[in-house]
Every structure is written in structure tokens, then in C-alpha cells.
């Protein structure tokens, strides 16, 4: 750990942060009374949710209720699309991520994201995995880099399928493999949280199954937040489920948040019960 004299607080901050990480009861991400606006259009209101460390939280709800928006507010990637505004707070291990002092690239380095459509870079599989590592300016030897690639691909259960074509284009593998490559690429920078926005919606059932198994393995070391349209998937992979809905105002709200078993068998809210029963959405 470096301790620059110019920043006397840094060692102190590090100690505090590592305390937060070892205390498993501290949420990895805490959303406090969040409202979200695209320009002046309000799409989320009053969301309160704690994403527990090393658990999988699923977000379900009808299209357009703001699930992707909430997910994108957790690593501030929504800002790429245009002007946004928030009320409330989002805290990553106790640190306000919307504070002006925050280095947004540090945040995104630790809060990885997997998108709905696989989006590999048009380079080799090897270079895809290493992109995040290379841009973070750490110096690595050739062997270390090879090892990072292998670990990441094994972590994403892709190693056996691509180990002989690491230098081949990432666009030449199947959609399911590309999606696991995108997961591996996120894992290579060793994030604390992985956000997944309908990661299986463009995949076939077998690839979907592989990714679901992967999620189960990853949660031993990671906190995962997954948006899904597939009820079975939510009930299979997640520990907690949050149900979102909109009314005539078109503003998304979180309706219910509870352990997954409760949401699917014994939800308190009638809209949640109707949604998981497939009556709308």
C-alpha cells in the first residue's frame, strides 16, 4: 500500500475501508432515497435498497420501470448517455459515489458491469481480458498477464473452450461465449461488485444455464446485482429480489424487497404477487 505524504488521510481511509469490507454485515452498495432524472424526465423515485456483500440480488419488474436505470446509477455509466440528475445517495462501502471528489474511473474499476448484448472489443480474446488491467497503468510481467488471463477465463468457466485461441478475434466465438468473455473481462480487474443487465436475454438456454451456474460460483467472492425478465432465473440465482413497478405517472418505484423465497411464495404486495404469477409485465 502506498502512503503518499501529500495525503495524510489515505492510510486512515484504507484502514476504515478494509474494516468495512471484512464486516460482512456492511452492504456493498447502499441506495438511499434515490430519485433519478434523465434531463428533466423523472424515471425513478424514492428507491431505498441495500445490496448485501457476497449475495445475489435480482431486480425484476415490467419493462420501462427503471431497472436498468437503477443499475446504471450504481457505476455512473448512465452519464455517458447524456445529462442526468439524482436526488438521494448511493454509497459504495460507505462512500458517496456521487460526491464531486470521486474518481469515476476508480468507481467503475470496482463496480464491473455486464450488458444485455455481449460487447467484446474487436480485438483478440487475450487483449479483451487485459484491457481493464492495462489501462489501470499497473506494470505486469508477461507471465503475470498470462496468469491474469487464465484466472479470469477460468473464473468465467470459459478457459477450456478458448485456451487454444486466445490470440484469435473475440468476435469469432459464439454469443454465449462472448458473454462469458465479457464477464471474464470484468473479473480480470477484480471488482467488488458485478452489475448484470439481463445478461442472458440474448442467449440460448444452454448458455443461459452456464451463466447461472457461474453466478452461483462468483458470489463467494463478489456481490452481484442482476436485472432479469425471467422469473425462473431470478428464483434460481438470487438470494434477494427487488420488485419494481410504475403507475400512470411512468415513474419507477421499488415496490417490495425481500428474500427471494418470500417474493416468490409469499409476497406482501398484491402487485408483486400478480407479477411473479405472470399476470402482467
Amino acid at each position, binding site marked *: 500500500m502506498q502512503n503518499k505524504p501529500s495525503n495524510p488521510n489515505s492510510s486512515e481511509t484504507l484502514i476504515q475501508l478494509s474494516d468495512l469490507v471484512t464486516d460482512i454485515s456492511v452492504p456493498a452498495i447502499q441506495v438511499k432515497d434515490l430519485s433519478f432524472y434523465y434531463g428533466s424526465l423523472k424515471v425513478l423515485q424514492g428507491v431505498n435498497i441495500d445490496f448485501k456483500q457476497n449475495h445475489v440480488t435480482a431486480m425484476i419488474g415490467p419493462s420501462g420501470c427503471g431497472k436498468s436505470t437503477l443499475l446504471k446509477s450504481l457505476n455512473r455509466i448512465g452519464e455517458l448517455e447524456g445529462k442526468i440528475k439524482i436526488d438521494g445517495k448511493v454509497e459504495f462501502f460507505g462512500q458517496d459515489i456521487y460526491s464531486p471528489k470521486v474518481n469515476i474511473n476508480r468507481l467503475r474499476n470496482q463496480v464491473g458491469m455486464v450488458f444485455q448484448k455481449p460487447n467484446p472489443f474487436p480485438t483478440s480474446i487475450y487483449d479483451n481480458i487485459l*484491457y*481493464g488491467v492495462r489501462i489501470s497503468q499497473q506494470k505486469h510481467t508477461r507471465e503475470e498477464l498470462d496468469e491474469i488471463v487464465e484466472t479470469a477465463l477460468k473464473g468465467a468457466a470459459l478457459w477450456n473452450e478458448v485456451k487454444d485461441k486466445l490470440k*484469435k478475434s473475440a468476435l469469432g466465438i459464439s454469443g454465449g461465449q462472448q458473454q462469458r468473455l*465479457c464477464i471474464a473481462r470484468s473479473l480480470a480487474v477484480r471488482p467488488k461488485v458485478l452489475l448484470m443487465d439481463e445478461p442472458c436475454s440474448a442467449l440460448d438456454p444452454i448458455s443461459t444455464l452456464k451463466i447461472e451456474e457461474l453466478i452461483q460460483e462468483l458470489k463467494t467472492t463478489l456481490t452481484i446485482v442482476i436485472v432479469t425478465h425471467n422469473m425462473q432465473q431470478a428464483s434460481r440465482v438470487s438470494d434477494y429480489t427487488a420488485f419494481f413497478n410504475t403507475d400512470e405517472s411512468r415513474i419507477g418505484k421499488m415496490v417490495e424487497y425481500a428474500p427471494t423465497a418470500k417474493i416468490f411464495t409469499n409476497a406482501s404486495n398484491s402487485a408483486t404477487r400478480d407479477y411473479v404469477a405472470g399476470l402482467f409485465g
Partner: protein
Amino acid sequence: MTNQIQEPELIALTVPLPIKRSYFSKFMTALVFFLTAVAFLPLGSVLLEIISKGFANLSLDVFTSLPAAVGQEDVKNGFGNAILGTLLMVGVGALWAIPFGVMAGVYLSEFGREQPKSASVIRFTTRILSSVPSIVVGVFAYGVIVANFKSFSALAGSFALGTIMLPIITLTTEEALKLIPVNVRQASAALGGNRFQTTFRIVVSAALPGITTGALLAVARASGETAPLLFTALSSQDWPQGLFDPAPSLAVLIYTYSQSAYPEQKALAWTAALVLLSLVVIVSVTSRMVTRNRLQTR
């Protein structure tokens, strides 16, 4: 029920289309082929003419010798100096136009969205610049360089050719960058990539085939320009002497020789045209190959 859907009728697959429709279809197909042939006619005849007349005098001397004085019989006659002059001026022009053009394209595509006013002004002026007649560019280069240095020079020629390349490169770069999908930029940002890293490591590198094609297109276009060179580099019977002296070029040589009263110069104009054409073809074939190789690795 009145609006109940009727079960569709089953029609045998071998029943021919109504006669009118099939004749119309045949007629349209014939028309398309005919019009394509007509469009190719001028292009094909220009090519044939250049190749047949140009080949007659093609020899190694053409590439290695200086133009012989009129009337001298046993002296090697060629235009190696003009080939070299064209390569020099197009090369130096590209050397400054490519970095500026690519950067301007990057600005328009990647940063223009946040500064829509200045981006649209720049885009508009670039479009205007790309359609300014090349002779006007020549006069401009004359005013900027020749008038100040008090001499015609290869530098002025390069400046004029670069000015012609600049807007082409800017606009094609912008188009090439815009083709790179947003989700690739998101992927880079989601891995902690900052603006600069996302733009240059991911977007520009993915768009490189398109940018290369645009740059080579601009180079090909500039190689054939004559008017701006008449005002700037002028011409010379000698080998190019450097950037600060007048320099010969294929385009100007073709222009003067084709108006010459001497048949051997007229003949050599065709050969020069063939060489210039080959240079342009080589450039665009190279660009295609670069693009294709990149695509194959995808």
C-alpha cells in the same frame, strides 16, 4: 360472424406469375443491365485509351530519367523527376493533413455531442472546404506560402494538396468513428477506462480500417490535382531539389505535355497518365487490403 378470417386458398407452386408481371420483371432487369453498361462506357474507354496509348512508351527509362530536350534523339527520355515530385508533395501533404484531419474527425464524433454549436460550425466549414474548387485552394496556398517566401516551392504544393486532403480525412474519420457501436464505448467505461483511453484504445483502433481508407482516398484524390500545383510548386525539368524549390509533378507534366506541339511529348503524356493511374490504383488496392485483413481477424 361477418369479419371472420377466411382460410387461405392453397395454390400450386408451379402456377406461373401473371404474364404482365413476368414481362415487366424481365424488362426492368434488362434496363438495369443496359444502364449499367452505358454508365461504364466512358469509364471503360478512358481506361482502355490510357492503357493502350500509355503502354507504347512504357520502359524503365521513364521511371529513371529526366525529360529529354525536344529534338534530341538518342537521349533517354522519361519523367522520374515528376514521379518523385508527386510522391514528395503528396507525402508531405499527407504528413500534416492526416494527423490534423483524424484529430478533427475524433473531435467531431467523440466530443461534438457535448459542444454541438462549435461541432456543427466545424462540420459545416469542413464540408464547404471539401467542395471548394481546387484552383481556389491553389490560389490560397499561393497567397499563404508563395507570396510570403517569394518563390514557388514544393512546400507550397504540399500545403495545397494537404488542404485538399484535410476535409476528406476529417469527414471520413468522423463517419468511421460513428459506426463504432455505443456499447463498445460503454464496455470500456465500465472497466474504468477514461475518456482518452476509450477514445484512442478502443474507438479509434476499432475504426482504423475506415480511417485508413479515408486517408488513402484523400491521397488518391490529391495525387491527381493539377490546378493547385500550377500556382504553387510550378514545375521543373530537374529532380526535386527539396521543399523550398519548385518541383515537378505528374499532373502538371501531363497538363503541359498533352498541349505540346511535339508528338514525342504528347505520347509521353499518355505514359505519365498510365503511371499516375497505376499509383492511384495501387493506393486504393492497398487500402482495400488493409481493411480486409483487419476484418478477417475479427
